[in-house]
């Protein structure tokens, strides 16, 4: 019997994960969320819907993604064996597409002709633009103006896919502001628009359904671990911004008490400097933003704090509510990796294994470098390689003093 069985029964009927989650939205959106919840609760038990989702994951996304033994890197670190869950090999290059496939099916069922999304690094925007192209849906993606600058390649990819990318100039001009603007769009166009949220945050039922659509990652990893090394992993590591890739990997292992889990947040210049995006690791106060209650970086007046991270995809002051609860009950340990350690891990995996990780995923790798040497060679760590690094080449080049 697991200590953590209760966790799998959440959220409750109102979308709460303990004190977190919920539905903190202005009244105009309540009916759309009620509607979405009803549709999803029905379809989640519908074998036809699940079969269509599984078919798309297999034939469009290319699942299952491999579990790759990073043998050379493991040897170099001199401890546990490191296995990479290769979400970077998915169509569009990250785990994000698992969720957009699922939500696009919901959009199709709801008959709405237009989808909107927010994006940070652009991976969720690309994944949304991709499924919108395939289903012939009009697509608009909100992206902070600063992120539009640092992720030009993904912006152009979205435009090639037929999406309209809207640069958001308000606030800190990053992911949180993109989400504000997407919510404003939704409240205005709620009759014909489906909002595809990209992470396990937002108002209920989003944290639940984004989790469910990404849980395929953990289910595969569990099965593959048994096949590849005949037992469950000793530890799982994944990066956490909003937390969708971590949620996807961790969720199917929640009741496996012997599997340790590490969520790695963006330490930026260091948690102690205040310039970071690590609400859990820094013990940020409880707060409410974007429809849910969670750990939220804010000042003493309750104004949401500026965040800092080398990776646009983790540059977010809050975190999914289920992660907040998992921190409180001790199921997952949340730590932070600083920008310099992340860059080092990025370069190291590229050179040692020939795999260029996304800067987001490199946060998880940075912690693998810390954890692996503390374990024995007969122990196993599964790291979620949530995305590929092509989109980050310009960012890294700039640090190297190169401009193209």
């Amino acid at each position, binding site marked *: 019997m697991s200590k953590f069985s209760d966790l799998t029964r959440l959220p409750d009927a109102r979308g709460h994960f303990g004190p977190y989650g919920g539905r903190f939205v202005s009244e105009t959106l309540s009916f759309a969320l*009620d509607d979405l919840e009803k549709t999803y609760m029905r379809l989640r038990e519908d074998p036809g819907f699940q079969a269509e989702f599984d078919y798309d994951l297999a034939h469009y996304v290319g699942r299952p993604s491999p579990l790759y033994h990073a043998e050379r890197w493991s040897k170099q670190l001199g401890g546990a064996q490191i296995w990479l869950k290769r979400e970077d090999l998915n169509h569009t290059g990250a785990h994000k597409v698992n969720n957009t496939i699922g939500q696009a099916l919901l959009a199709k069922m709801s008959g709405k002709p237009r989808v909107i999304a927010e994006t940070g690094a652009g991976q969720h925007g690309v994944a949304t633009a991709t499924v919108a192209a395939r289903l012939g849906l009009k697509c608009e993606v909100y992206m902070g103006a600063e992120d539009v600058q640092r992720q030009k390649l993904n912006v152009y990819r979205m435009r090639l896919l037929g999406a309209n990318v809207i640069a958001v100039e308000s606030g800190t001009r990053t992911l949180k502001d993109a989400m504000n603007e997407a919510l404003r769009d939704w409240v205005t166009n709620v009759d014909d628009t489906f909002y595809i949220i990209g992470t396990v945050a937002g108002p209920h039922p989003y944290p639940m359904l984004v989790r469910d659509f990404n849980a395929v990652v953990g289910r595969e990893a569990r099965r593959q671990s048994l096949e590849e090394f005949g037992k469950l992993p000793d530890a799982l590591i994944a990066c956490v911004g909003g937390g969708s890739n971590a949620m996807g990997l961790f969720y199917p292992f929640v009741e496996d008490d012997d599997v340790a889990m590490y969520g790695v947040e963006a330490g930026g210049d260091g948690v102690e400097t205040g310039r970071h995006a690590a609400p859990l690791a820094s013990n940020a106060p409880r707060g409410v933003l974007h429809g849910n209650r969670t750990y939220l970086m804010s000042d003493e007046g309750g104004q949401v704090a500026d965040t800092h991270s080398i990776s646009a995809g983790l540059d977010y002051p809050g975190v999914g509510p289920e992660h907040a609860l998992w921190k409180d009950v001790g199921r997952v340990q949340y730590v932070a990796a600083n920008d310099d350690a992340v860059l080092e891990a990025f370069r190291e995996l590229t050179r040692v294994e020939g795999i260029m990780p996304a800067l987001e995923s490199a946060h998880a790798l940075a912690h693998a470098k810390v954890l692996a040497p503390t374990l024995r060679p007969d122990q196993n760590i599964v790291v979620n390689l949530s995305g590929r690094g092509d989109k980050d080449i310009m960012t890294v080049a700039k640090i190297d003093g190169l401009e193209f």
Partner: protein
Amino acid sequence: MNRIDERFAELKAQGRRALIPYITAGDPAPRYTVGFMHALVEAGADVIELGVPFSDPMADGPVIQKACERALKHGVRLTHLFEMVREFRQRDDQTPIVLMGYLNPIERIGLEAFAEQAAAAGVDGVLTVDMPPEEADEFGPILKQQGLASIFLVAPTTSQERAATICAHGEGYLYYVALKGVTGAATLNAADVAEHLAPLRGLTDLPLCVGFGIRDGASAAEVGKVADGVIVGSALVNRIAEHAERPEAIAGELKAILGEMRQALDALPAH
């Protein structure tokens, strides 16, 4: 009896509609806010909605977003709002004040501390945009204990079933959001508003006040025909923005636009 209930009882006895202006506290700078509030009352305000600036005002359009930014540049926070209300109360003990904003600044100082300080300062009601009644289990009773009214929104998309829940929780007045959209968006459709207000009358005795899309005397009068009160925000905040460099002119501007609405409402036949 709370000041809000008293005010609506008076208005009802007179057959008049409530005129409810909104301004963001601290916009364009904190030292002007109390003066603006008195000016609004002089121009005929029945209730004042005082906006709590927030870094992420998700339900607001660009006009109020920028007002929040101007206020936050001066570091305005709830403790300053309490000071403003206390100062306002030195000269005006009659006009009800409703704080309108988002939940995070309130949670940050704590629900109980907030309610105590707000009541002590002379606040009468609280409208938390991102807190529907389903999430108000904890906060509602805390406000009530301090004699503060919980004011809720009803939208064009609200189902009858939800409207009944909201009416059961609501106090002071119901804020009907006339448009699908953010504040300051478009012009409202008065016929559509009338159609949505009618079923609410069967659910509650609370005064029905309408906001979003009211910008002048004519639109105020249109809505006043079917509502118990009209709420005007972005149209006023726009004037503040236009004169942010000449703040001494703002009070006069606010009085002019609100006065026009007052006249238009009072010209309507008694309810």
